[in-house]
């Protein structure tokens, strides 16, 4: 297996492999860490903490399965935790998402196509997101699929498993894409000096918003609550709720009256991915 992966990786262009490694190693904002920070070890510890959280959640779900009345609450917590982790990664990698002046000055005179640099940069960020998504859900996705999708037999378990992973990846892509879009738009519209000031403020604001959303956002736990939820309700503006609806749409348990919430998730995902793509191409 290792040989298979190695052979396939070796087929990628050398420039891409070299740059991807460099960008992945410094994808975290070094200013946010100590000057002696060992980035590979940091990435390992980061993944280890998330895996531990996932294992504890999985054990908790299997040993003390929540009553069906709490399923929605648990699902919203999972989406909200995933978005918090991705949000914190976005804050930590804030200045390393786009190729910066240093990259331009170092790599510009070298015989490397700009497309390869951009691709390596994006895949380094995607690599970190991938590590986070996998580590946080690798065990809990199995336990939740067994418990929450068990009523539908093996097919139900499989459907829940796929829906769960799709939702986690989609919510991560939405949040990271939204951050990229905001950064890209600001960088495009503002002069460089003003952008640097505004960017620092945005980074701090994003950190606050992600924490507040995680700790203070109320959840919708019953069909009755969902049925009375109007599209203009402040709660309906929460992306956590949109992606919770998306999870239930995918696994077939979303009430017909709440389809509009899942539609919001699809629209938000499309907008964030399109915005991020345009930002990366323009910047």
């Amino acid at each position: 297996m290792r040989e298979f992966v190695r052979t396939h990786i070796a087929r990628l262009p050398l420039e891409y492999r070299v740059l991807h490694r460099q960008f992945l190693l410094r994808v975290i904002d070094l200013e946010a860490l100590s000057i002696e920070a060992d980035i590979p070890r940091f990435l390992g510890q980061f993944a280890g903490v998330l895996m531990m959280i996932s294992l504890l959640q999985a054990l908790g779900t299997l040993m003390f399965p929540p009553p069906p009345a709490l399923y929605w609450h648990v699902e919203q917590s999972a989406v909200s935790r995933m978005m918090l982790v991705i949000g914190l990664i976005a804050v930590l990698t804030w200045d390393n998402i786009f190729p910066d002046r240093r990259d331009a000055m170092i790599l510009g005179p070298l015989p490397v196509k700009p497309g390869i640099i951009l691709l390596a940069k994006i895949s380094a960020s995607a690599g970190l997101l991938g590590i986070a998504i996998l580590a946080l859900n690798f065990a809990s996705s199995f336990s939740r699929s067994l418990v929450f999708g068990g009523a539908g037999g093996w097919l139900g378990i499989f459907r829940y498993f796929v829906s769960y992973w799709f939702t986690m990846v989609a919510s991560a892509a939405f949040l990271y894409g939204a951050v990229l879009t905001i950064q890209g738009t600001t960088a495009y519209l503002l002069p460089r000096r003003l952008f640097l000031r505004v960017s620092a403020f945005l980074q701090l604001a994003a950190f606050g918003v992600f924490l507040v959303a995680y700790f203070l956002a109320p959840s919708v736990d019953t069909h009755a609550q969902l049925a009375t939820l109007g599209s203009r309700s402040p709660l309906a503006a929460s992306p956590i709720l949109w992606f919770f609806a998306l999870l239930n749409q995918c696994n077939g348990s979303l009430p017909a009256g709440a389809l509009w919430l899942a539609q919001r998730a699809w629209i938000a995902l499309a907008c964030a991915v399109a915005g991020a793509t345009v930002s990366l191409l323009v910047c």
Partner: protein
Amino acid sequence: MLELRRVSKHYSGIPAVDDVSFAARPGEVTGYLGPNGSGKSTTMKMITGLIERTYGEILFEGKPIEEDLISYKRRMGYVPEEPYLYNHLSGAEYLTMVAQLRDLPPRETSERIDGLLRLLSLFDDRHASISGYSKGMRQKILIAAALMHNPDLVLLDEPFSGLDVGSALVLRSLIQELARRGKVVLFSSHELDTVERVCSHVVILHRARVVADDSIAALRSMTELPTLEEIFSQLAVEQDTDSIAQHFADLIHA
């Protein structure tokens, strides 16, 4: 041969480089001089392809550089004015990365990197992080990275910055040796003594335009001035330097 034809770069309509034309030939060191803000580094960045020009053409061996920019960059080595490096890497790792991106053969590269680091007195610090390097050590890494692939076109923008006397003397001889071996060398510096010793041909910029483009000997006989410093002062320095120095000393009550 490197040739610039009527090259200009404007920022918000203001020319940073205005209608600059000159040629740098293989086998000679071309000095590129000018006061601060005259457009030297901007020209260098346009030649490397780091920034786009507003008007004009840059040709290397008769072909516009943008015709095959990647092949052109393979044959170019550039020491920038600002020492941008990846600080999380060690000196050896940085050079290895550059060698890999230049697609140099690994075994040969490793020997060459070790050799360069020894010659530049950096071998003992090769595994230390660049973040702990002094300015001179960083400059040596930039020089090694620019020359390790044996480029045909060598662009040096203030290459002596931060170097100690010994290293500066080595670099001076190296620049001459590279020219002797048929490289095109374009060399920008404020150190006029060094330029006078190293360069056979100089281009002097003033207010973004070329005000002199000739051999040092021809400029000497044309201006009837004995040194490059005096020629430069006459062509590109508008202030009365002695009077400014006197006023400065008066102002601080020295």
